[in-house]
């Protein structure tokens, strides 16, 4: 009888310890993504827990490639230069190209393992599978499904401390369908996105994750160039780094398609904004891309340029 009593006690203590660990993980245990890519983010202002990074650009400007570059960096094991954290990928327009992600992973794993040649192929397959096991993919086909899925994912995030990153590609996919479905009232049109943003705010606060979201640049910025230059002539406004002025600053350095069109609730959540654009074609027929990063914590934009090779993004 004494033995049974002891085992009961140990199981209850084990359960209590587990809950403590989960609580700790929830409060401060998630891995920081601050140094995920020093080329893109300004020094010391990489995304920390609770940040939202918006990838904005026209079609073919390198958003998805950069996203894959960052996601593969997250899921690669630590001994291969990665962060070994889990990623939740929400795909709203069936855009997720698994074959491309696997090619990028294989190249990155292959780079490190060039010395060990013989067993390389089979081992690399096993390693790729191990990396993919850290990635979860969800497909959503309407904004209601996106909202409900985020509700469901709340409990998933709280119970898995290794899940540090939520990627939504793209959050603007339902813009036109919602806009037409909401009729004349702007509030009804933006209702679902506003609810998603409120839910994301709660997720960010409670679970301390990082969110990457892509938005398509579909609205032409018809602002006159005269207006744009007066905005840049107010250094005082730029220095205060209030949320409205840093957004103004970013749009003076943008391409034609930079008008923010998503609901205010979403725009308030965004802490880092990456603006992608296509550059020129170099002499050896390589297409260059550029990314300009603005954040709420720094002044000015950090510009970087890259080209897309078979193994993924290569910064110049």
């Amino acid at each position, binding site marked *: 009888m004494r033995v049974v009593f002891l085992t009961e006690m140990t199981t209850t203590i084990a359960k209590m310890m587990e809950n403590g660990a989960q609580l700790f993980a929830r409060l401060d245990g998630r891995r920081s993504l601050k140094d995920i890519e020093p080329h893109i983010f300004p020094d010391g202002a990489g995304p920390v827990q609770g940040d939202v990074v918006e990838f904005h650009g*026209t*079609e*073919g400007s390198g958003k*998805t490639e950069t996203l894959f570059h960052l996601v593969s960096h997250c*899921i690669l094991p630590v001994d291969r230069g990665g962060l070994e954290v889990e990623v*939740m*990928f929400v795909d709203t*327009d*069936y*855009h997720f*190209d*698994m*074959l*491309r*992600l*696997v090619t990028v992973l294989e190249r990155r794993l292959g780079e490190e393992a060039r010395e060990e040649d013989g067993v390389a192929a089979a081992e690399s397959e096993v390693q790729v*599978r191990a*990396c*993919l*096991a*850290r*990635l*979860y*993919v*969800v*497909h*959503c*086909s309407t904004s*209601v*499904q996106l*909202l*409900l*899925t985020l*509700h*469901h*994912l709340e409990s*998933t995030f709280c119970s898995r401390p290794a899940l540090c990153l939520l990627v939504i590609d*793209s959050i603007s996919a*339902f813009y*036109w*369908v919602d*806009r*037409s*479905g909401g009729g004349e009232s702007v509030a009804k049109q933006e209702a*679902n996105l506003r*609810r998603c943003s*409120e*839910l994301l705010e709660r997720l960010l606060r409670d679970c301390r994750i990082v969110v990457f979201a892509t938005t*398509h*640049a*579909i609205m032409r910025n018809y602002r006159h160039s005269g207006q744009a230059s007066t905005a840049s002539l107010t250094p005082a406004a730029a220095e205060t780094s209030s949320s409205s002025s840093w957004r103004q600053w970013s749009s003076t350095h943008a391409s034609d*398609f930079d008008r923010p069109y998503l609901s205010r609730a979403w725009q308030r959540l965004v802490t880092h904004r990456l603006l992608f654009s296509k550059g020129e*074609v170099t002499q050896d*027929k*390589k*297409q260059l891309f550029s990314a300009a990063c603005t954040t709420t914590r720094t002044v000015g934009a950090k510009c970087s340029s890259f080209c897309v090779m078979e193994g993924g993004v290569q910064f110049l």
Partner: protein
Amino acid sequence: MVVLRDGMCPGSSEEMVVALRAADITTVEDLLSSDTEDLAQKCSVSYKALLAVRRVLLAQHTAFPVSGDDLYEDLISSTAIVSTGNSSLDKLLDSGLYTGELTELAGGPGSGKTQVCFGVTVNISYQLKQSVIYIDSTGGLSASRLLQILQKICKLEEQMEALQRIQVYRVFDIFSLIDCLQSLQCTGLQRASAGGGSVKAVIVDSVSAVISPILGGKQNEGMSMMMQVAGVLKTIVKDFNVAVLVTNTVTRDCNGNLKAGLGQSWSHVPRTRIILQRFESPGSTCSSLRTATLAKSSRQPCLLKEEFDLQCWGRSEDQLYEVSGKRKLEKNSPY
């Protein structure tokens, strides 16, 4: 918007729905966004019952995450590459049309988009012995042209068999296109095909013919319907694992380069894009030569160019070799 109704799930009775409606909760998303305790008090509904209904509705309407490992496993076992029948196009597309992806063919009038669609259709139905669904919105499909191509490459019985594997739908406005696609999605593609073989490709020629008339102006319905078409096409692509080929017009951008029509929002939809143009050669006026440029691809470097002959689908193997041997491509020709 999913409206709350009685009988939606076990536990959602008529009284509960009426009580919730009185508290301004009419849709599932309203119910899930509001606080359960408050709601139970306000509507005098049992907290437990409300929680149970909430859980069931969430399970019914949520999409569930799949591990990347399982997804990759599914993909490598089910993805197939459908050859177009033309080696130059196959080279651009990295061996052919991939199932599970949407490919776009853009070109001006007379650039050969419909002929390429015919060639791909004939190749799939005769060479690969699989079914094709052809949605014609321009009236450009003619069975006699398909027969003409088939007559040069096979015997009579095979011709009829090949034609039987091609299922044609004619749509002339956006509503009938959406209707046709949604009925294909609901009833499943297999029932639509006749004559054996599973459906490997769905060809929509052309998508801009039904969408361009409804775009423009201050109204949003046109954009919304275009994105609905995109949504249904993508669902068909993923659920039934077929290759979808759509054709589109071209416009010129501010630098004078050709780009696909239908605007910025549609440009995100296809995975791969090829732009067709007439081959500029001095002297010949109505030649069947075309150049294809790869404008968007996740597998090949962009701006790859290939030349091909529109008549290649109706030629036998020996003739093809003889023709392509004579013409050497200028790979570094200026754009």
